[in-house]
């Protein structure tokens, strides 16, 4: 494509004489102007730059939908360029570039431009494709031009040429001076491919919109032995599409039967697998494994293995027995070699009435090491597997630990003065804390597994669009328009066969192709009786290749 072309001369129209009223375009004209402007390739180019610039911003400024925690730190001024700058970034929607109105505007403008570009191209392409190859004239003036001689009569020579040009679209025509000619052309796939490629972007857009409108993504963590149901309420985090509603949940139950993780010698996880059972109306339907890169698909919902952690079961009860205040598996998350987490034991009640004492807020703060030993006063981690687990439990009790606030319990600051006891527990062990008022038990250690559950419609559309992008792109880059003509002219005993051609793009590739066609044609014209000894016709200087 775009080999060197001399720039077109532009002739300015003669300036109108005399004073004129200034042109003030009306609203319709303005729209027309804007439309014509949008259709220009240079506009598309500028829009592509804008798109690139937006994504550069999104690479260097943390994005709220991706890493919300970092964005919080930037807003607070503890990380990033400071709180004042963060306010500027916020005002420009730089923390959510891809959800911002201006990103939407760029995309919309690009698609408008694309539409404006494509329609004239479809029309022109339809015209060009339907038009049969045109007869050539002035063949001897073309850069690629050769004369071959043969003993065959003109019709037979053209028949032979037609076989050689088998892969070209061609027809027999009569050139201006009545000479029989074959006009052949190839390479419509260049423009056709480009049209497919550009059109595929609409399909891509459709697929994305379907996914965003009718899809659902939720995150949930469950401990071994526990289950969750696919309903609106259970997910820890849910991102439903605009048109996804509660009734779209399937309602089946997923039970985590078992979780297994294996580690590399450097303590990084090697593989982790959840064994889950799906239940419908209390009936077990299927038991299967879910592991990284191997999600489970059930009734249009895909269940992915996402995270995992330790889940010690902890019981808190009044010392000396009685009903447990708390009995649950606490989901711990990794923090270096430790697994940490917190649990709310009692929300407290400042005025229980009946003259009873106010109940304080009670919280547990846990840290677990799966397999460690103290060697010479230093903690040494032996392995990440829970071979020798130790659970450090701290119990806090106070009038206001902040448990009533909407913040997640992990981000609360518990005052040191509310610490009412600490103990180091092994599985099966227990300890009396809070001056012997409460017993904390650690009956067993389980693990938990985190899943992402999602429904992503439109994926097939996207796959088809992606394939069309490639199917269109490749010919649009490699194919090229070229035309060949073969003319046969009787000259006494012999026939002069003229082969000539032009290419609109990729001149070097065409030079090679032309030489190849010439050689095959020469061989074909030699026919059964070789004509190699015919007096050589001085051929015009061949273009230097490359």
């Amino acid at each position, binding site marked *: 494509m775009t080999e*060197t072309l001399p720039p077109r001369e532009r002739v300015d129209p003669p300036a109108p004489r005399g004073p004129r009223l200034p042109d003030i375009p009306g609203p319709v004209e303005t729209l027309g102007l804007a439309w014509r402007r949008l259709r220009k390739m240079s506009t598309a180019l500028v829009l592509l730059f804008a798109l690139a610039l937006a994504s550069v911003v999104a690479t260097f400024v943390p994005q709220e939908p991706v890493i919300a925690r970092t964005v919080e730190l930037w807003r607070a001024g503890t990380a990033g360029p400071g709180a004042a700058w963060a306010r500027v970034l916020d005002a420009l929607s730089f923390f959510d570039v891809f959800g911002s109105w201006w990103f939407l505007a760029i995309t919309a403008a690009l698609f408008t431009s694309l539409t404006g570009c494509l329609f004239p191209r479809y029309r022109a392409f339809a015209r060009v494709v339907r038009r049969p190859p045109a007869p050539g004239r002035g063949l001897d003036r073309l850069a690629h031009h050769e004369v071959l001689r043969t003993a065959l009569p003109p019709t037979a020579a053209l028949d032979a040429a037609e076989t050689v040009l088998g892969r070209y679209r061609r027809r027999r025509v009569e050139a201006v001076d009545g000479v029989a000619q074959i006009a052949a052309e190839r390479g419509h796939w260049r423009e056709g491919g480009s049209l497919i490629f550009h059109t595929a972007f609409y399909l891509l857009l459709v697929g994305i919109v379907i996914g965003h409108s009718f899809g659902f993504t939720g995150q949930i963590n469950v401990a071994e032995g526990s289950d969750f149901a696919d309903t609106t309420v259970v997910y820890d985090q849910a991102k439903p599409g605009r048109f996804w509603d509660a009734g779209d949940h399937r309602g089946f139950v997923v039970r985590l039967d078992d979780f297994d993780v294996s580690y590399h010698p450097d303590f*990084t996880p090697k593989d982790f697998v959840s064994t889950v059972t799906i239940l419908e109306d209390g009936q077990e339907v299927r038991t299967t494994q879910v592991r990284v890169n191997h999600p489970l698909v059930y009734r249009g919902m895909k269940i992915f293995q996402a995270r995992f952690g330790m889940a010690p079961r902890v019981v808190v009860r009044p010392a000396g027995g009685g009903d447990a205040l708390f009995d649950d598996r606490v989901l711990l998350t990794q923090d270096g070699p430790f697994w940490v987490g917190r649990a709310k034991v009692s929300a407290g009640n400042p005025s229980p009435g009946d003259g009873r004492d106010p109940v304080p807020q009670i919280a547990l703060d846990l840290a677990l090491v799966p397999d460690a030993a103290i060697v010479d006063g230093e903690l040494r981690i032996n392995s990440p597997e829970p071979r020798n687990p130790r659970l450090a439990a701290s119990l806090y009790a106070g009038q206001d630990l902040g448990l009533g606030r909407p913040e997640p319990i992990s981000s609360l600051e518990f005052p040191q003065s509310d610490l009412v006891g600490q103990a180091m527990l092994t599985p099966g062990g227990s300890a009396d804390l809070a001056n012997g008022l409460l017993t904390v038990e650690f009956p067993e250690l389980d693990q938990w597994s985190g899943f992402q559950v999602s429904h992503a419609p439109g994926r097939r559309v996207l796959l088809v669009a992606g394939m069309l992008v*490639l199917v269109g792109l490749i010919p649009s880059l490699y194919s090229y328009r070229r035309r060949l003509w073969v003319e046969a002219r009787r000259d006494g005993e012999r026939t002069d066969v003229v082969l000539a051609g032009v290419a609109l793009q990729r001149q*070097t590739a065409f030079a090679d192709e032309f030489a190849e066609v010439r050689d095959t044609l020469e061989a074909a014209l030699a026919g059964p009786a070789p004509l190699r000894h015919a007096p050589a016709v001085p051929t015009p200087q061949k273009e230097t290749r490359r």
Partner: protein
Amino acid sequence: MPNETLAQTSNTLFNIAFVTYIVAMVAYFFRLAFTRVSVAGVTSSTVTGTRIGLVGTALAVAGLALHLVSFVARGVAADRMPWGNMYEYSSGMALLVVAVGLVVVQRRFGYGHLMGFLLAAAVLMMTSGLLLFAEAGPLVPALNSYWIRIHTSSMMVASSIFIVGFAATALYLVKDTGERRVAASGGDSYTGSTVGAARLTPVEPDARPEGYEADGALAVSVASPLAQREVLSPVLFPLVPGVIAALFTLLVWRAPVAAIIAGSVAALLGTAAWYAVPYLPPAAKLDNLAYRTIAFAFPIWTFGVMTGAIWAEETWGRYWGWDPKETGSFFTWVLYAAYLHARSTHGWRGRKAAWVAVVAFFALMITFYVVNLFIVGLHSYAGPGLV
């Protein structure tokens, strides 16, 4: 389990290939000094030049063979595809740059004079690989999928061809500047033709800069291309790439010594480019080479991004999440698409389009180095991944 001996052999071979490439690069640059060039742009080598060129080619081929063995051994040692971390990925890119250089640029296009620059690119890649060295080890579970073979290898192949395209683009800009300035100083009416002044007639003998004897045909035939060097600044040529490379290294690795070394190497390359100007293929041909390589790599990159999306869907349950790495490969893609458009837009083709390709290449480098090393996302190649 990683096989220690094999991994060790792989490292040793890598180092030998590294040194071999450096020597080959020097030979290729020396070859320039023994080259003559005529007005028509036909280059010819002296006997010494031909010999040095052969030595350079032999060394490059030998280095390539050793490098290939090192690359494969690494894969066998780790019992997986050898592109699981940045060291391996850099090594693979360097390998492909040399291979593409030898097979396509030198053999097919016949531009052996560009090989020195491509070897330099490979050496720089390998240096960064050494800075990012990681032992042959297993992958985090998320990377452990057959998609890594398809996705990462496409990205690697496309990147390495983009590197070749960048070398051609940069040299095109240099050559084009030379051609234009000579044309301008020669009093030729400068028409701002599409790709450089390649189609302008060469300067007349009396338009040669001072210091050239007008004695006979040779001086006339050598004058025009050599004049292209005279009109370029011998100071800016080492300075600009040197400063850029030093700053980039300082920013990425915060290692002053490495920055000084990278800066000096880049400065040397700038000088080599300056010296090579007369012997480079005409600007229009370099532009064509740049276009062809980039147009070849672009669908591969597109394919790589798509398979990446399929893989992300499989692993993280969403095909696209604007994770920094995804965003990076997106803007690289958009910028190369912009280059392809610019190349067929009136008023953009030629130098402006080439600058778009330069920007696109920087985007590629940012996506590879800065995003991988500094920006936290799911695609952590550098640190332990999330999953």
